[in-house]
């Protein structure tokens, strides 16, 4: 069972079990990781699940798709190169230990 590591604003790491195939957002919301809201349930509609992918994983996770790109541009306060909507990142066995940082606001 792959794990996802959420780094909260105060620097604390929260390690959560995930199932391969589900989104990082879904894992976060279900487990009540603060700072990831995911109102639309993963439909790339609300831009409330913004994360910064840790540098170590940013290459393997890849960049945003077109639709996601638009939402990040307009919805996100502090967009960076590593910004992604976590509803669009699928957990896989290969991404075990995937680490993402939670932004200040959604």
């Amino acid at each position, binding site marked *: 069972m792959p794990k996802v590591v959420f780094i909260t604003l105060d620097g604390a790491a929260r390690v959560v079990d995930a199932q391969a195939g589900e989104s990082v957002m879904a894992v976060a919301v279900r487990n*009540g990781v603060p700072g990831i809201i995911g109102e639309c349930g993963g*439909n790339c*509609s609300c831009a409330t699940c913004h994360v910064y992918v840790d540098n170590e994983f940013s290459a393997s996770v890849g960049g945003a798709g077109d639709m996601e790109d638009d939402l990040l541009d307009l919805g996100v306060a502090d967009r960076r190169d590593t910004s992604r909507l976590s509803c669009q990142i699928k957990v896989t066995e290969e991404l075990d230990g995937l680490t993402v940082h939670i932004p200040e606001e959604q």
Partner: protein
Amino acid sequence: MDAGTLVVGASQAGLQLAVSLRDAGDRSPITLIGEEPHAPYQRPPLSKSYLQGGAELEQLWLRTPEFLADKDITLVTAERIDTIELDHGGPSGSARTVSGQTLTFDRLALTVGARPRRLEIPGADLDGVTYLRTAADATLLRELQSAAESVVVVGGGFIGLEAAAVARAQGKAVTVVEAADRLIGRAVAPVVSEFYRAAHARRGVDVRLGVQVTSLAGEGNRVQCVGLSDGSRIPADLVIVGIGVVPRMQLARQLDLDIEGGIVVDRYARTSNPTVVAAGDCTVQPNPLTGHGRVRLESVQNAISQAKTAAATLLGRREPNDAVPWFWSDQYDLKLQIAGLSNGHDRFVVRGDLEGEAFAVLYYRDEMLLAVDAVNSPGDYMAVRKALTQGSTISADAAADGAVALRNLSVPQALGV
């Protein structure tokens, strides 16, 4: 001792209300009671990925049971409140469940939701006639659908069209029957209705507008045929009924709360008894954008936003539910995103390419931007949502030029009018 808060209805709004109370530091007991046997889950995927078979219910949980236990939120499932009363007008009172439990409370929140409107015609109780609201509904439908060949969808609203899209993607013969002269008439302008009619037709759905289902016939207990008001008959081994929902108002009636097609609340989610709050699909509230009129919003966004407002109210704070409403619907590869409320518009502007299935419709009243319906145009959706949130506007004349990005056209409301 503080008997705490009783939250009646354990879906999106109820769960959010309970979590928001805890997040705000409320340490008193919280009981969340729901009639379904499951932990609270997301409903929208029931007519989308879950129906397609691409998700399991545990993946749709809004929070894990462990999370709720950790937050000391008592979840009571498979149980329904039968009677409820307040002590001397509230806020405290007691409720009795169908199975005979008594629950006392110091504060009460109604997040009771809505039930599907039932089809009331001959044959409506045949096997193979289904509704789509709960996980149990969707699980049954998913099973029946795998064996079905001909599906008739009664009702051309969002639920019906999403279900039709799933059935069509699985290769079924699909007919959608809508009594009105256009699809999704309550939510979108005629131009968008016509787009969806054509989009479904292009994908092989037989869309019948302006006709009603008058009877269902079958052999034994199983539905086989749908009879329409124009005299035609359509073979069907599965009928999916999506003709809207009716707010659950039984408990509100017992409490003598004002009801007008839903439980009437103000912008602070207070019912006509200000000690009792209500949130979600069961409520009618002032238009969140204008503060006027009354609207009933059936959406995840409203359930969450209004539940947060209701939690604040219970804790003595005043945080109006004035968030910009938004909504989405997935059908085939068409992603519809709506922001704002287009009710009462006197003008609309279409940007983009209807034929190419990527466009946005912006709605105005007195030149003021009200809302957007965006199909496969998330940038336009987000630009309007952001403008509405910030109190900005986008001039209709400028928006009509599809070559210019909307985000570059947003100006403060005072300058835009």
